[in-house]
Structure formats: structure tokens, C-alpha cells
């Protein structure tokens, strides 16, 4: 057999960890990326990466608790075996990254230091200042460069993935890409293609994501028949700094290191924030969530900030929504050591020193929990079978999804500092399974009939020609993108309502139709960014529709998906008996709702109708039974008590 190769699309943490591990296993790897891999979006990650550690263990932590926090934080919407496996790998992953030279912050004695992140009570998060993603990415970039020198890895940087090549059994045999400099389109035979192309924040116009996060690679797989799951779960990060081109993240680590969120009790109090006395400040997260305080999970913090500004009118500024994120009580030296990177960003882009003046922040679209649907191979004890080619494979054999574009780990809401973990875990864990997949193949992709690849290249060339030949004066792709972003941000972020979602769907369909009439301002064949952008825009619509349809269909509240119409009530009864009856009804409703909605949304693209078809898949919750997520609900203690009684009673009935 000719030599086999694996194509990795994307050189963020997920793609690079896969590439280096595959190379170690002796497999030849190609890495394709829009940007030089060292410039991938992972470089933006600030706060850190989670695992339990020897120290948290002594405070009662364990891998199991990390697993539990992750599924609880995600409102139980994830299949539990992959999450469990990831949590058990986490300490090993941090050790590996440490060995690769990541400059994690240290304790006085020289151990890796940890900070606390949202949705947990333990200090699990390892960090390298406030530039953890950059440091992790560089370590992997360096290792992949090492394999490049050794001849195991070839990089195709400044290349755009145009789509998978499927044979007539629907098996992925490679892909087609375009050189962004020469605009050459060519096929890459590959015995497996791994999509590690990150998130899709650009669907929302401005977000905390980098400009390459268009979701284009994922959408092209989706349109080729790959399933997409849980699209409606989009994380809106509570704390970002609004900007004209980007909403720049202020990492959760700012709160992890003691940052406090507040607004003046007097609406739009004109005083300098530092002159406002404690008694006239409303630390609303601390007051409403005494246990977690400023570190409630993201979906909750986001909704509260939204609520304070929109419903209570307590925004710090008049014409603009924002609240204070205050670090000014923390010593400057400590701030510089632990948060230097993000404070510099604030200072550089806002011209204000956040060590002296509280920052002004507002929520922004940040992360997609949804992504390509993938399978997994469960062991009897509820983990993942190692070296199984079933892990992380999409419904198209040979096509895999890793990193942010894999839907598997974060359910309805991702906990901070769990994404970097899931990305690296994916790459390391998938590689041995791919080795087995390759050895099971009878022929190498390089030996597949040339016509298979040629016809796909011709199809792509024809698509491009069609774009280039459109008459001038048509729709403007940049303006359509802006409108798409506005529609999505209005309808499918923090608070969702069915009439708005229905309108948004109609508007997105109209925009998609208009985008078919986009004209290019550049019809040349050299570094044509206009063409690349327009093509990415066209591919945004199928994903935008998937998000909106999923959100419209899901009549409940779960994690980041919040529809006030279906919110679970607080307990309001006056007497204990009344409240107990309410709690009982609450639990019944919770149970019924789970039976209806504790399911992954699975979307399939229907090319002829150009629309999305949804179905629902049961979630494997066999390890940790779902329980109500009660952060901050009035009557939480009572509901918990009633719920626990029910669970005990149920267990007693099981023989």
C-alpha cells in the first residue's frame, strides 16, 4: 500500500496536539490552516486550563468532581463518558504541557500555581499569566515545527479548506483546499481528515473571536453531509470590552483573582467610581449568589449583567450598556504578575489603567458549545475506549472533529478554562484511534482513483468561477455580514423569544438569498481576500439557520439557552407547606422537562431545500443522574431536599 497520510484542518490547540501526537506515532501529517498556525485563535485564550491537582485533592477535589462540575455546569446536556475521560486526563495534560516548556505561574516553592474559575469551588486552573492560550499554543507550535524539521509534518499555511472528498461509500478520502496566495485549488488525498477549525463567532458579526473564526470549514463539512449538534448553545461571556471591530474579552480570571462586578445604586451616578462609597455600590452577583459570588457560571453572570442594565436600568453609562469590573482593591504588583496580559489589552485599547479605574464591561458572544456531531466508544466503566477509531469520528467515516468544533464536552454551557483542556485532550486522545483506523484501511487514499479528486476540484473551481463572473454592482458581502451579525445578536444570544427567533429565521433566509447576488470587488487570481470572505459568508448561513432553528424548537431553559417563557419558577408560597407543595410540583415539572428536552439537537443539512432538519438524540447520563441546577433560585434548598427525597425513593424501588 502507498504511504498513508492524515490531513489536519486547523492549527490551534486541537489541530497541533493531534499533529504532534500522530507524528510521534509515525504517521505522516499535513496541517492546513488559514493563518500560520502560530497565529491561530487559541492564542487569544487568557485565563487558564483546568485539572484537579495534588493540592485541590487535599481539599476534597478529584477527577470525578471536575467531571461533575463540568456536567452540572453544562446542565447535563453532554454524553458523560467523553467528559469523564477528559477530566481524568486533565492532570496528565497539564504535566505534559509543563514538560513542553509552558511557563505556568509558580508557587513560592516552584509548583504550578492555580487560580479559581467559574462554576467550581476549587482552585483548579493552571495559568501562564493572562496569556495561557498563547503559551500553550506556542509549546505545541514548537513541537510541530520540530516534526516538520524531522520530515513527518508538512504545513500548508495560508490555505482555505473547501470541503471533504467523499467516495461513493461516503468515506472521507481527503479534501480540497485553496492556496490563499496563488489561489490555486487542489486536492489532498488523505486517509483521515481531522477538522480542528475552532468556533464560529463571526456569525454574530462582532464577538470575542478572531476574524478567522467564521465556521467555514465546519459548514462545508455540514453541507457535505456531516451532522451538526447542539448548535443553539452559544456562550455569551459576561465580561468583554465593547469595540468597533471586536469585543475584547476580559478573562474570567479577573474575577478569579478577586475582581468584583458592581454598579452604582443610583442609576448613571456621575461620580468617579472610586468616589462612590461601598454602601452606594450594588455588588449584585455577590448579593444574589452568596456561595459563588462573582464566580457563578457564565450563563448566569451574563444574564444578571444583562438584567441589571436592560431591565433595571442600572447601566453605568447612559447611552451604552456596561457595568464595572473592579480590580482596584488588589495590589498592583499582584495584578501585574497574574493578569498583566489582559490589563495591558484594556489599557492599550481603552486608554485607561484598570489598576486605578474600574473597567467597563458588557457580555459578548464567545464560544460555541455546539459543533460537528461525533461518536464515541464507551467502556463498561463509563470512560472512552482508548485507541478506538470510533472516538471523535463524525457520521462520515474518516472525517473527525476536534477542539471547539467538536460538540461533545460542554453541553449547554462551558465552564471557564475547560476548552483549552478539551482541545488538547481531543488531539492527544484521537491520535491512537486514528492509527487503528489507518491500519484497518485496505487501500491508501493516494491510490484512490484520480477522478474522485479531480471532479471535486473541478466542482470547486466552477463555484469560484460563478462567484467571480457575477455582474458588478450586486450585494455587498461586508454589509450583508454586518446585518447577519445584528440579526443573530438580537435573536440568539442572552434572552431568546420565539417570535423574535421566527423573524430572525426569515431574515436570515432573505439574507442568504441576497448573498447569492453578492458581487466581488476583486475578480483577480492573486491573494483575493474578497473572494475568500464572500465564500465564508455564504457558508455562514447554513450554520446561522441551524442555531436559530435549534433555538426556536427548544422550548425550555438550559444553560446558555434561556427563554423566559419557559423559565422554572421561584418558590413563592407563604407557608412551609405551600412551599413544599410548590417544590414538589417544581420537581415533577423538572423531571418531565428532562424527559422531553434532555436531548442533543442533531441537525442535518438538506441541500435541495437549503434548509436544516432537526432530530433529537438521548444523552448518556448513566454516570451522574441529572439534578436541578439551582444557582440563585429562591427556594433552592427546599427544591434540593425534595429532589433528593425523590431520588432516594426511586433508588429504593430499584431491586
Amino acid at each position, binding site marked *: 500500500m502507498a504511504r498513508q497520510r492524515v490531513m489536519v484542518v486547523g492549527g490551534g490547540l486541537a489541530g497541533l496536539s493531534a499533529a504532534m501526537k500522530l507524528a510521534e506515532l509515525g504517521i505522516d501529517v499535513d496541517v492546513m490552516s488559514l493563518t500560520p498556525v*502560530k497565529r491561530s485563535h487559541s492564542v487569544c485564550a487568557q485565563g487558564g486550563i483546568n485539572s484537579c491537582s495534588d493540592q485541590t485533592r487535599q481539599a476534597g477535589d478529584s477527577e470525578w468532581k471536575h467531571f461533575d462540575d463540568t456536567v452540572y455546569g453544562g446542565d447535563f446536556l453532554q454524553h458523560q463518558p467523553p467528559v469523564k475521560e477528559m477530566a481524568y486526563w486533565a492532570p496528565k495534560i497539564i504535566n505534559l504541557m509543563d514538560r513542553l516548556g509552558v511557563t505556568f505561574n*509558580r508557587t513560592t516553592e516552584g509548583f504550578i500555581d492555580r487560580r479559581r474559575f467559574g462554576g467550581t469551588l476549587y482552585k483548579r486552573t493552571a495559568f501562564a499569566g493572562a496569556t495561557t492560550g498563547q503559551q500553550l499554543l506556542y*509549546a505545541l507550535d514548537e513541537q510541530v515545527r520540530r516534526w516538520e524539521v524531522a520530515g513527518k509534518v508538512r504545513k500548508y499555511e495560508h490555505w482555505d479548506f473547501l470541503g471533504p472528498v467523499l467516495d461513493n461509500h461516503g468515506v472521507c478520502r481527503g479534501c480540497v483546499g485553496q492556496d490563499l496566495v496563488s489561489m490555486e485549488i487542489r486536492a489532498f488525498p488523505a486517509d483521515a481528515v481531522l477538522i480542528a477549525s475552532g468556533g464560529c463567532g463571526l456569525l454574530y458579526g462582532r464577538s470575542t473571536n478572531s476574524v478567522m473564526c467564521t465556521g467555514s470549514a465546519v459548514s462545508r463539512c455540514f453541507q457535505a453531509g456531516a451532522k451538526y449538534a447542539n448548535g443553539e448553545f452559544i456562550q455569551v461571556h459576561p465580561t468583554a470590552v465593547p469595540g468597533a471591530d471586536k469585543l475584547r474579552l476580559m478573562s474570567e480570571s479577573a474575577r478569579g483573582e478577586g475582581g468584583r462586578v458592581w454598579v452604582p445604586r443610583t442609576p448613571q451616578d456621575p461620580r468617579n467610581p472610586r468616589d462612590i462609597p461601598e454602601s452606594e455600590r450594588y455588588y449584585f452577583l455577590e448579593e444574589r449568589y452568596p456561595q459563588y459570588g462573582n464566580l457563578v457560571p457564565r450563563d448566569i453572570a451574563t444574564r444578571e449583567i444583562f438584567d441589571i442594565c436592560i431591565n433595571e436600568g442600572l447601566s453605568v453609562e447612559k447611552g451604552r450598556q456596561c457595568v464595572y469590573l473592579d480590580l482596584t482593591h488588589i495590589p498592583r504588583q499582584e495584578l501585574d504578575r497574574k493578569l498583566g496580559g489582559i490589563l495591558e489589552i484594556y489599557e492599550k485599547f481603552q486608554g485607561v489603567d484598570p489598576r486605578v479605574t474600574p473597567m467597563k464591561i458588557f457580555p459578548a458572544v464567545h464560544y460555541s458549545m455546539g459543533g460537528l456531531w461525533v461518536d464515541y466508544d464507551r467502556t463498561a466503566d463509563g470512560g472512552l475506549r482508548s485507541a478506538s477509531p470510533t472516538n471523535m469520528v463524525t457520521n462520515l467515516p474518516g472525517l473527525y472533529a476536534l477542539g471547539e468544533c467538536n460538540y461533545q464536552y460542554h453541553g449547554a454551557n462551558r465552564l471557564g478554562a475547560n476548552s483549552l483542556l478539551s482541545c488538547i485532550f481531543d488531539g492527544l486522545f484521537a491520535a491512537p484511534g486514528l492509527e487503528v483506523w489507518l491500519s484497518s484501511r485496505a487501500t491508501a487514499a493516494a491510490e484512490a482513483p484520480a477522478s474522485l479528486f479531480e471532479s471535486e476540484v473541478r466542482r470547486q473551481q466552477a463555484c469560484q468561477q460563478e462567484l467571480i463572473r457575477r455582474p458588478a454592482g450586486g450585494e455587498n458581502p461586508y454589509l450583508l455580514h454586518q446585518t447577519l451579525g445584528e440579526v443573530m445578536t438580537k435573536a440568539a444570544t442572552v434572552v431568546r423569544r420565539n417570535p423574535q427567533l421566527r423573524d430572525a429565521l426569515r431574515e436570515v433566509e432573505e439574507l442568504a438569498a441576497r448573498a447569492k447576488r453578492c458581487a466581488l470587488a476583486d475578480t483577480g487570481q492573486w*491573494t483575493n481576500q474578497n473572494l475568500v470572505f464572500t465564500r465564508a459568508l455564504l457558508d455562514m448561513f447554513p450554520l446561522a439557520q441551524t442555531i436559530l432553528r435549534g433555538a426556536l424548537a427548544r422550548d425550555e431553559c438550559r444553560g446558555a439557552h434561556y427563554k423566559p417563557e419557559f423559565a422554572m419558577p421561584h418558590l413563592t408560597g407563604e407557608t412551609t407547606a405551600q412551599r413544599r407543595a410548590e417544590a414538589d410540583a417544581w420537581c415533577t415539572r423538572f423531571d418531565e422537562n428532562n424527559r422531553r428536552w434532555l436531548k442533543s439537537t442533531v441537525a442535518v443539512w438538506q441541500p435541495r431545500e437549503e434548509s436544516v432538519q432537526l432530530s433529537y438524540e438521548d444523552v448518556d447520563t448513566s454516570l451522574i443522574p441529572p439534578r436541578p441546577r439551582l444557582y440563585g433560585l429562591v427556594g433552592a434548598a427546599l427544591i434540593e431536599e425534595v429532589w433528593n427525597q425523590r431520588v432516594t425513593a426511586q433508588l429504593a424501588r430499584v431491586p
Partner: protein
Amino acid sequence: MAENHREGEAAKTFDVRILRQAGPGQASYWERHRVSYEPDMNVISVLQKIAAHPRTADGQDVTPVAWDCNCLEEVCGSCTMVINGRVRQACSALVDRLLEQHPDEIELRPASTFPVVRDLVVDRGRLFQALKKVTAWVAVDGYYDRGEGPPQSQEEQEQLYPLSHCMSCGCCLEACPQYARVELTRGVDESPEEFVQRQAETYDRLFLGPHAISQVILFNSHPTGRHMSSLRLDALIAEGGIQLCGNAQNCVAVCPKDIPLTTSIARAGRAATVHALRKWFDV
């Protein structure tokens, strides 16, 4: 712009002058665009506006200007260009500040030390090749679980951390008088692979640049990275090595990540001298 602002005219605008070039080997030319002012703009949002309406100040329709960017928060190193005569990142170049320095007009040029691909996009492949030459990685045994890495004091971490921030933007190379531009073109009977090979060999003979010298210090200071010190020092004293640095210190002045390049260069210089002497006596 400032004038307009004071007079309170309806449409506040400013001009952007861009040095354009359609492709390698083609002549470059200046083009002027007029952009309507908005608060909180940076050079990337200016370029986005121009992309959406590619029309010059005198009303001619043109092809959109090409440029590189990704993170928009000065961590990815993509958007290096020469703005009002100074090499820097476009995403952190705030329009208000630029207009304060130089009212009415912003000037954008591609970095001149790298070959132009198109307009403001340059080919920085040489910068990454230098990272290969100096073995800029920790040569671990492999990626299986082997427990924790070597412990490190806070002091060591605080020394390594700034050095590991180099985002390969190339600002330092644009500023360095010793880093001269080379532009190779693919021969007619040369395959892409042969061309890449020839590029790498050519780059390896030329000055490797302050960013790579600083990476030598980073990895030679790391408890495990240190094991390959002498290989890295070999690269420093080879052709294109540290001896070419004239100590002009231009590099450190422009580094957007404030990497202590001259400190690294001084340390590397001493280490290289010792290394060369030792080699001398060994043979």
C-alpha cells in the same frame, strides 16, 4: 480631521494613504482613501471600511486593499505594517492617537524587509525558518505521561515568561539595520518543493534576527531545553549568526511585546563567545 471636528461639520473624514502593490515584482504605488470618522476606530477597522467600499478619495473604484490580521488584540502577530512611518501592529494602532500625531492623514506601508505578497501582506517565512535553525523547542522524549516537569522558581518563571511572548510579528526585523530584504522567485523549471528548499537554504545563510537570538536564551534557560544548548549556540556562531548584530538596539525599541531583546542579545553574545572558545580548544 481635528479642524473638521471643531467646526462640527456633518461628515467628519480623514484620509488614508496606502502603498499598494498588486503582486511580487510589480511596481508599487500610493493610493488615497477617504474614510468617515467614528469613535474608537483602529487601523483594522479602517481597512475593513475600505474593503467594504473600495473607492479612492477621488471617486475611483479599485480592488480592495489586502492585509493580514486575526486576533485584533495584539497577540497573534499577524497585522504588522508601517503606520505613519513606524512599524507596529495595526490592530492596536488607534485612529484617535494617530490623528493626534498627524492630523488629517494616516499613512500605511507594508513592512519593507519582507517580500510583498500583495499590498500590506508580506511573506514572513524567513522569520519562522530562523526558529528551525536555532532549535526553538524543548526536545522531550515524547508525549506519554511522565509526570510533572522540572520544578521552577518564581524567579525563573518570571524570566522565561516575557521571552516566551514573542509572537513572530517581525517588527524587530523591520527595524534592524542588519536584516536586509531578500526576495527569491521560483525558477521556471523549479518545483514548489525545490523552491521551498532553496528558500530555506538561502535564509539559513542570512542574519537570523533578534527574535531568534532571544529564543535561544529562552530555551537555553529552560531546565530541559538547556540540554540542547550547544546545538543552539552552534547556530548562533554559524553563518548568519549573532556576529552580524551591530548592537544598534533598534529592535528592542519597536517590539510590541516589550521583549528584552538587547538583554537577550548580550547574554547570547557572551554565551556564543564562550562556546566558540571552547570549540576552539576542543579541536
